[in-house]
């Protein structure tokens, strides 16, 4: 704020220079962003009003017909919505809760080798999703998988035998990757809680578990909210795990792990190149995600405040 008064000895010219440099410096970002980011999102609406297959004939204007089909006559789309939400709900609570517990334990003063534990727990976040999914696919394989060996369930097909268990397996892959990330975020938040709160609680005879529920969780509210909001956009756009594990755009033989994003890609960039219909999926997805993000924000703000 003191800026203007300080250089008023050549205020006019400096202000103009600042403005010029300002526009110049932000322009590469905005030009690229508008061309490759914003314009495509908006142009998607236009594309969605056509029966349009790339490389096959001319697009034909059909108004909102794609949306009508999607909402009234497309069970795969409904399946993809149910699956996406199912996996998000299965993943989110364990993911955030386990991360909170790890952060709380790691933050205890007596714990040694903190950096080593942090590194180990964070390592999954660094790895490529493709590689991770290949490994998990192997761990969950029907006849030779380690998971079935440990559980004594050889012959159980995690991908194909039960829809909800296939979702559960996907959430394990997701959580394996994201728990470490959330832990690190929570640990940063824990640094801001004053030690005196814990000391006072200890003097009053509160156990560590009580401290966790009555001090740590309430104090971390804003950060928990932040991670919860972050998880919506990530979770709703789940793609690589189901794509690699079920080896293609179908999300398994019965579309059991088909997600919205996978369905959009499969429709637009699969063999049919049905970009008109795919664009409509994209827009419905956009609306669903925004509505859900708002709902999630309202509900979790309420829950976390009470």
């Amino acid at each position, binding site marked *: 704020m003191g800026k203007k008064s300080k250089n008023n000895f050549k205020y006019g010219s400096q202000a103009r220079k600042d403005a010029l440099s300002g526009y110049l410096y932000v322009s590469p970002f905005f030009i690229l962003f508008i061309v490759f980011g914003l314009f495509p999102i908006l142009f998607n609406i236009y594309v969605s009003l056509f029966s349009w297959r790339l490389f096959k004939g001319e697009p034909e204007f059909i108004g909102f017909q794609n949306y009508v089909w999607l909402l009234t006559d497309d069970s795969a789309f409904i399946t993809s919505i149910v699956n996406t939400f199912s996996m998000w709900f299965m993943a989110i609570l364990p993911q955030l809760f386990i991360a909170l517990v790890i952060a709380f334990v790691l933050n205890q003063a007596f714990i040694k080798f903190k950096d080593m534990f942090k590194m180990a727990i964070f390592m999954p976040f660094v790895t490529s999703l493709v590689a991770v999914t290949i490994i998990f696919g192997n761990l969950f394989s029907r006849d030779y998988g380690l998971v079935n*060996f440990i559980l004594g369930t050889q012959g159980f097909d995690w991908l194909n035998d039960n829809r909800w268990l296939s979702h559960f397996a996907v959430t394990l892959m997701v959580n394996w990757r994201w728990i470490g990330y959330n832990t690190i975020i929570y640990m940063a938040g824990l640094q801001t809680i004053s030690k005196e709160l814990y000391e006072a609680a200890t003097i009053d005879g509160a156990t560590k578990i009580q401290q966790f529920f009555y001090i740590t969780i309430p104090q971390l509210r804003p950060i928990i909210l932040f991670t919860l909001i972050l998880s919506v956009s990530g979770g709703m756009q789940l793609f690589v795990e189901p794509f690699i594990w079920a080896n293609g755009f179908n999300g398994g033989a019965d579309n059991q792990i088909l997600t919205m994003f996978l369905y959009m890609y499969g429709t637009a960039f699969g063999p049919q190149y049905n970009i008109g219909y795919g664009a409509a999926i994209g827009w419905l997805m956009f609306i669903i995600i925004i509505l859900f993000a708002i709902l999630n924000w309202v509900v979790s703000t309420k829950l976390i405040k009470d």
Partner: protein
Amino acid sequence: MKSPTGRFISYFFLVIVSFISVFPFYWMFVLSTRSNADAFKFPPILTPGDQFFINLQTAWERSDFLTATVNTLIITGTVTVSQLFFCSLAAFALSRLTFKGRKFLLLFIIITLTLPNIGQIPLYMIISKLNWINDLRAVIVPALVSAFGVFLIKQYIDASVHPELIESAKVDGARNFQTYYRIVLPIIKPGLATLAIITFMGTWNAFIWESIVLRDESVRTIQLAIRNLQGTYTRETAIVVTGAFIATLPLLAIFIPFSRQFIAGLAEGSVKG
């Protein structure tokens, strides 16, 4: 926690969690050192074997990993350098220069950060019009800047570059670009390092968009090369996993020595954001 039981439980918990986090890496290593036949044994073999170089050779022949590595390096290198430059330049302007519309632009960036990314279909049409399908530019150019990068660095400049410093540079007659280059950049080095690692990692691991626009073998990235192995040689687990292992090693080689700075930088960035 003074009681030995409490301590034991805490350590036990952390060791279990760390074990689960690291085990899939170990498992990747085990499978990549075993033969294909070994991967189809029950109970599974838990110790490494001696087939790694044979697997490596086969994987290398099946999917052109050399080309894939070169392509990946070109993409990650260009994108990372460009992001550091353009994002920090825009962030400097948004944080420390006064001009009309600045607040609006900032709001615009924050909104776009929260929007779901569903523009791939029109983007594909644009790339197609530009004749960039099966051309590395299809993945490089749209990624040259990012709202995330601008926002991250802006937060960093807001917190660490004092406005008076900029003022005194101006009084000394420095032009805006000199101020950015000589004063701001050196101060925000840690922030740039964080952005560099995040961008490098993200670009190295990027897969979805790449799988659509880079379908020719000559433009494959490492992720596409291992996906190609996995999709084509389904039964040859050892070979596929060896591919995954080579794709992961460079990331671990960068992450492990710098993990402290990286974790700290990321945590700081998110909490501030």
